[in-house]
């Protein structure tokens, strides 16, 4: 029950923080930061899903951004062209994404490994980008699509603050879900599969099924986040979901730390906030982010948060005398 108490304590603090930040920011006249926090929360959801696939299950897929785009475009097209309600559009886009993931998962993920998997998902992402730009009559082409505001059963989310609460609550929910699932039997199976697939199979784990399951789960995070993103931005363009952003996701995940559930959020924050506070640094951004990734992989392979967690664990273990 100690675990349950810890969970409740943590949740309360987190939720409190979430509620308190916007009025605080408004007080000190930094309201525009709320918009940035929304983006951080949205990408945070994408990253948490990505960590399940890449960090825990060890499947190197570059396709996460494509499913982010599928959610975004799905919502965009269904709400603007066919006047579906935003929630219905989000749900349908999610189903569509899951369907595509099911097919892609069986064709690509079960048959290819490591570098081949990476290449195939990279190609898939590129093809998706081309599809977005290449069929202007359907997808609006390079110009994109505009969306009506997001609303849930009549409640309109048309301001930064309202969106902030919406996505923060959702990010929190996804976080709790992720944390629970990585500690479950299934989560441990993923780590086993990641470590040594053959040994995992000899321990009775159906690794093919696990791969499909984790793939669908991870892209679901992205698809839902994509729909929210589309409504927040109020438009979608193909450029937002290109390979460049796929690489950004990888940067964010590894800088923050794989297999930490929330480490990616720090990566998101660093890469999103950097350009904001330093406009004049914009040109340096690619070089700095690439170099940062390299430095982290060499010196802190568990990422910033991962390394901090290890450090904490070590100190705690040493102080309680159990040694390591």
């Amino acid at each position, binding site marked *: 029950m100690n675990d349950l108490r810890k969970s409740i304590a943590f949740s309360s603090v987190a939720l409190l923080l979430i509620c308190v930040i916007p009025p605080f920011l408004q007080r000190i006249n930094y309201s525009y930061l709320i918009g940035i926090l929304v983006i951080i929360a949205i990408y945070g959801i994408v990253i948490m899903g990505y960590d399940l696939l890449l960090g825990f299950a060890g499947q190197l897929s570059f396709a996460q951004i494509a499913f982010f785009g599928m959610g975004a475009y799905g919502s965009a097209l269904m709400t603007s062209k066919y006047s579906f309600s935003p929630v219905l559009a989000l749900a349908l886009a999610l189903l569509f994404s899951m369907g595509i993931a099911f097919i892609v998962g069986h064709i690509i993920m079960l048959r290819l490994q490591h570098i081949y998997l990476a290449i195939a998902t990279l190609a898939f992402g590129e093809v998706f980008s081309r599809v977005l730009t290449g069929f202007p009559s359907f997808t609006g082409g390079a110009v994109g699509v505009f969306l009506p505001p997001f609303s849930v059963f009549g409640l309109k989310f048309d301001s930064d603050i309202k969106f902030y609460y919406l996505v923060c609550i959702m990010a929190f929910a996804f976080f709790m879900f992720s944390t629970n699932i990585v500690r479950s039997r299934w989560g*441990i199976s993923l780590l086993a599969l990641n470590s040594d697939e053959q*040994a995992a199979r*000899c321990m009775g784990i159906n690794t093919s099924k696990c791969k499909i399951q984790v793939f669908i789960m991870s892209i679901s995070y992205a698809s839902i986040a994509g729909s929210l993103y589309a409504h927040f931005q109020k438009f979608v363009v193909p450029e937002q979901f290109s390979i460049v952003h796929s690489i950004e996701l990888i940067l964010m995940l590894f800088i923050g730390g794989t297999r930490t559930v929330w480490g990616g959020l720090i990566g998101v924050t660093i890469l999103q906030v950097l350009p904001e506070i330093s406009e004049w640094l914009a040109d340096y951004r690619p070089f700095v982010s690439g170099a940062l990734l390299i430095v982290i992989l060499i010196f802190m392979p568990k990422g910033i948060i991962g390394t901090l967690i290890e450090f904490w664990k070590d100190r705690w273990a040493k102080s309680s005398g159990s040694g390591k």
Partner: protein
Amino acid sequence: MSSQLLAVEDVYRFFGGLTALSNVSFVVMPQTTLGVIGPNGAGKTTLFNLITGVIPCSQGKIFFKGQQISSLEDYEIARLGVSRTFQKVQLFHHLNVLQNIMVGAQIQRRSDFLNTVIPGKRMAEKERILRRSLEILKLIGLEHKAHFAPENLPIGEQKLLEIGRSLATDPKLLLLDEPAAGLNDYEIEMLEQIIFRTRQLGITILLVEHRMGLVMRVSDRIIVLNYGKKIADGTPKEIQQDSAVIAAYLGEKA
């Protein structure tokens, strides 16, 4: 016939132009230990890979508890009660010592889907898995290293951990692939103790080994492979006196 735990019938395995195993047949009775010996490259690990479903037989059949398993997937065979260790230790490096054993303990049997869904049963199941894992941990003597990373263990303990992981799956048949390789004499003693303990639990063992002393002490029967063929099948005493075996090893001693 039906009392045999494992029956291997006329099994062949080809790799392109190479014949790794040809016409291999033998049976293993329940609660016995079968040693598998032979010079390097004789096909012993290949045989293990066929039995555990890692690779398919080119020809022939394999039966486990009367059921044909030669066409089943490796994870299905594991769930039926066949577990193994590997020649080169293959532990889960993303998990700690205890969690490695838990992977074994949480193996799915039949369809216990219900156990994972109903909340009350889920808690009970989690506790069962933890309890069993701790039992096994104690059995192999690693309870003080439960949270260690597997790669931080000396090789002898890594091998014990691998055996523990397999034991946690509650197997009927345990295949050990050269467990003594790379171990010093003290570690081999520990290993022998674990093997005897495993036999006491009623688990049938298939043991590939080069350390002749160990094999002779532990096995009830031994089969000898050479160039993919079975050249002898008998008790340790019979094998030691078999001229074909001696010729194959050219006088190799333990």
